[in-house]
């Protein structure tokens, strides 16, 4: 059954792009969840809804419009936190709700692409184009490379931002780097599970890993393995049982979390 599915080009593309995006989401997710900033994934996903609507209105590839605009929105969230003295969640709420409002207005003004927009709401990795696969692969590798290269710095600011600052690290630069990487990952992730569910790719693997891991490295490894496994399992399951791929991937993530949580409870009782 799996061997049969893997013969298809669209399945191969979905597995390659999906796995790389899953790795990016998992790596970043550990840092975002531990820094209590996991909702930025949800907020930026809402922003990407508006940017996709704009791209469809302009008839240009959504990735090209979405990536710069979502990066700008993530900077806006950081600036609102720094300058307007807003709590992290409040800044995310402001930017994401405004974006959804803009997206709805654009969609209603330019009637005719609602079907396409719907595919971005819930993901459509099985119909991913070659261009999207290449872009996803390159950008995912950039994100994964960034996390690996700055691993120790990201670990330091995640554990104790003040200590990192005192030690002379450029914490603001690193925060902006995380914002850029998160934006890219979110935009890529909407191809896999859609804007409604993309934050789950960030949050689920990380919280699953946190239940069972004892070291930071093991948390990263478990999150990555869980995330890739769920994408692969989700793609095959959705193909075989004719289920929506995005939703199936997220359900696999939820099952993995339930197992990890149960394991932790058994271990500690």
């Amino acid at each position, binding site marked *: 059954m799996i061997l049969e599915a893997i013969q298809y080009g669209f399945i191969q593309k979905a597995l390659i792009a999906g796995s790389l995006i899953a790795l990016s989401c998992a790596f970043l997710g550990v840092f975002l969840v*531990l820094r209590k900033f996991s909702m930025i994934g949800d907020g930026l996903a809402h922003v990407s809804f508006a940017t996709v609507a704009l791209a469809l209105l302009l008839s240009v590839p959504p990735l090209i419009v979405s990536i710069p605009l979502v990066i700008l929105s993530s900077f806006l969230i950081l600036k609102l936190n720094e300058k307007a003295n807003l709590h992290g969640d409040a800044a995310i709420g402001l930017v994401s709700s405004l974006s959804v409002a803009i997206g709805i207005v654009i969609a209603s003004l330019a009637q005719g692409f609602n079907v396409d927009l719907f595919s971005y709401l819930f993901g459509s990795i099985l119909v991913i184009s070659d261009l999207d696969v290449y872009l996803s692969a390159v950008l995912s590798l950039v994100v994964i490379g960034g996390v690996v*290269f700055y*691993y*120790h*710095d990201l*670990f*330091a600011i995640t*554990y*104790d931002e*003040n*200590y*990192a*600052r*005192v*030690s*002379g*690290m450029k914490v603001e630069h690193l925060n902006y780097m995380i914002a850029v990487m998160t934006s890219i990952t979110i935009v890529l992730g909407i191809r896999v599970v859609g804007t409604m569910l993309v934050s789950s790719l960030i949050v689920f693997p990380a919280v699953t*890993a*946190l*239940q069972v*891991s*004892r*070291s*930071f*490295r*093991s*948390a990263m490894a478990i999150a990555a393995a869980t995330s890739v496994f769920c994408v692969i399992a989700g793609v095959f399951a959705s193909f075989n049982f004719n289920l929506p791929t995005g939703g199936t991937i997220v359900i696999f993530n939820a099952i993995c979390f339930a197992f990890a949580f149960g394991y932790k409870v058994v271990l500690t009782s």
Partner: protein
Amino acid sequence: METILKVENLNVSYGRHRVLNDIAFDIKKGDYVGIVGPNGSGKSTLVKTLLGLIPADSGKIHFGNGLELARHKIGYLPQVAITTDSLFPAKVREIVEMGLLVQKKFPKILHKEDKTKVNRILDELSISDLKEEKIGQLSGGQQQRVLLARAMVGEPEILILDEPTSALDPKIRSEFYQMIQSLNQKRQVTILLVSHDIGSIGQYTNKMLYLDQRLVFFGDYKDFCHSNDMTDYFGFETQHKMCWQHGAHDHNHSHVKLKTSTSSVEDVNTDQSLKVVGGEKV
């Protein structure tokens, strides 16, 4: 003795509220300074300004011996509450290694001698057996030792501790102060320790910096205990409470005025007109 930290006319505000007024003092290499004062006196603000975490309105901070250029030679130990998240996935070894890795340029790789340094500081602080334990599952005292190991592994010349024992019970607190004193004596590390626990830290520090939004006293602890100006400022009973554990207070100090103040050690007179530096009224 060489000056390792010089602060001149330092003023710091939060918004429109001035928290530190015209602070000036010199710290010599090897000093062990207790920074004390009532709640809201600006103790933590002072160390955060020294560490560059809060900008100053005006004034100068000079770290001697090229330390300004080598931030990693300044160790920092925050309050223990920072590590209370039991889910945080980090082993003790990873936290202590962080103290070396933040100093390194890319590629950030630990060499054999770095691992030796990590093992040595873990041994020195008696936490070698916790090396592979998860930080969030340790007690407050153990976590604080781990953070001290992280601060010390880079062999800093100045160690700044911001209320490091506020979450610890008295026995663990006393052990911790002794450990810091030992590091100060063995390694000649200059130490600035913020605490609200004036009575206890007087046993271990050799200098005291008393803040109450301005510098009330800076000098030897014994001078503080024998200062008539401080008796005037705090009242005899409060000064006595601050000094008795240190054994520095002269019970026969004939010219101290006996006051009937009921203020506690942490709730002292806040007359801001008096400023005594180096045991001298200025």
